[in-house]
């Protein structure tokens, strides 16, 4: 999937990949992050 110039809403998982880590990854693909958080489901 081409991510360049796309907007992203990121919901990370506390026991998986946290929001800031996903944010760093997608930024390198040219994505504009409009919202990022990490949530806890346990």
């Amino acid at each position, binding site marked *: 999937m081409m991510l360049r110039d796309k907007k992203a809403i990121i919901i990370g*998982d*506390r*026991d*998986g*990949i*946290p*929001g*800031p*880590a996903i944010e760093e990854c997608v930024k390198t693909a040219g994505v504009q992050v409009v919202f990022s*958080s*990490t*949530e*806890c*489901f*346990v």
Partner: protein
Amino acid sequence: MYSVLKGASYILAHTPDMVIHNGTTQTTQRTIDPESEYLKNLDKSLRTYEECKAYLPNQTYIGNMTPQELAGYEQPWFLQKSEHTEREGKFGEIMPEDEFIGLIAICDVFDLVKLEVNFANTVRSKLESHSLINPALLKALEKGVALPEVKQLIEDTRVEPLYFNGNIVGCIKAAHDIDQSLSAHVIFENLVSKASCVLSLLHLIGKTEVNAEEIDYVIECSEEACGDMNQRGGGNFAKAASEMAGLVNATGSDVRGFCAGPAHALLHAAALVKSGTFKHVIVAAGGSTAKLGMNGKDHVNKNMPILEDCVAGFAVLISANDGVSPEINSDIVGRHTVGTGSSPQNVISSLTAIPLEKVGLKLSDIDKYSVEMQNPDITKPAGAGNVPEANYKMIGALAAMRKEIEKSQLADFVSEHGLVGWAPTQGHIPSGVPYLGFARQELMDKKLNRVMVIGKGSLFLGRMTNLFDGVSFILQQNSGAGEEKSVSETSVRKLIADSLKDFAKHLQGDEG
């Protein structure tokens, strides 16, 4: 000299009515869509008290089964029949909801809990036979009110109703007309937390050789906040619960850190005891009603019973070295610092490999890791995976990356150094601490040499920081030095006393 882990207690209170009325998944759904099928059929998915007691992970939590025995059962465990169905366990008990509501009323010192008179009388007679509840405390249950009065109070929106078997049996009033920090909702959550903490304290004192009067300090580490609008979260649950548990010589304070709270609190306790400030410090926490039925929608969608139907609690006693109990090695402490970062690799390294490396230990030198011991029966159907297993895989992967093990040995590392999860998803409750009771015994039986306890906390949920958090420490077999030193100190004191007596006699002789 290191402080020691002198004892641990674990309790559950089966609270199905609180799942319906107080769990945030359900209350949120009621706000969004009160007519939803989920809410309409919720009661059909709730377990009876007998079913709750017969649930393998619950029997493990109170100590009637070991985690190793639990691992011998095929998952999902809710489909398995348990040989154990007892209320009482080696570490604590599973209390039924009516008695727990009675305990909530006992823990209310501001006359905010009103129980219907017949319910109050029934519960009082049940609690009279509870071996750990002081009869003097039962006076709180002599103030029952008529049902019409309870219903009249409930018509007031500032009241939180109390239910048992679907019927209204009382209510909790707000402690202030305007102050949201003292609303009926907050008072309810705080009293539940306090009551489950008190029950944990009572079991700890009842199951250890230390008397209530000997406890110097209590650190409470739940995830609730008590205070008024001018000091929201001012505390102090620790002292409030200690009062109820008869810890007359204790003071205390609250430590917070989301799910990492207990691990932080244990480090505080270990330091207070090691420094000689206090001899006996308890770390304790009650549970949260907010998380009841948190994953209920997924459970119901998969035709499972709602497994998050218990409020939990625990209490741990940290004492001066007795020469026998496992030591808390405070020289090997892992910390997720501000600069650690949020990647899973950095997080787990900061808590495991980095502190171990400093003292020349490898990841495989830890016999067992006590991580986040959430019960996979609860989390897997909800898509949150097997939390303890994910932690062990991460530690194993780190060991492989550091060439301490071969990649092919990863599965063996997980089974050798890991455990299955059995704790309810009550946030701080599953975080590192559920294994302490078992670990104490296994270290004293010389079955293990070292156990690492890891607590991790989701600080970002408070919206004050995006940071993660965590601390870890090591439990190890007692070196025996404690007993030796205490004997040695006693001997020295006796020698000095004898010398002074001789000297005094000598002086008296001279005067004569």
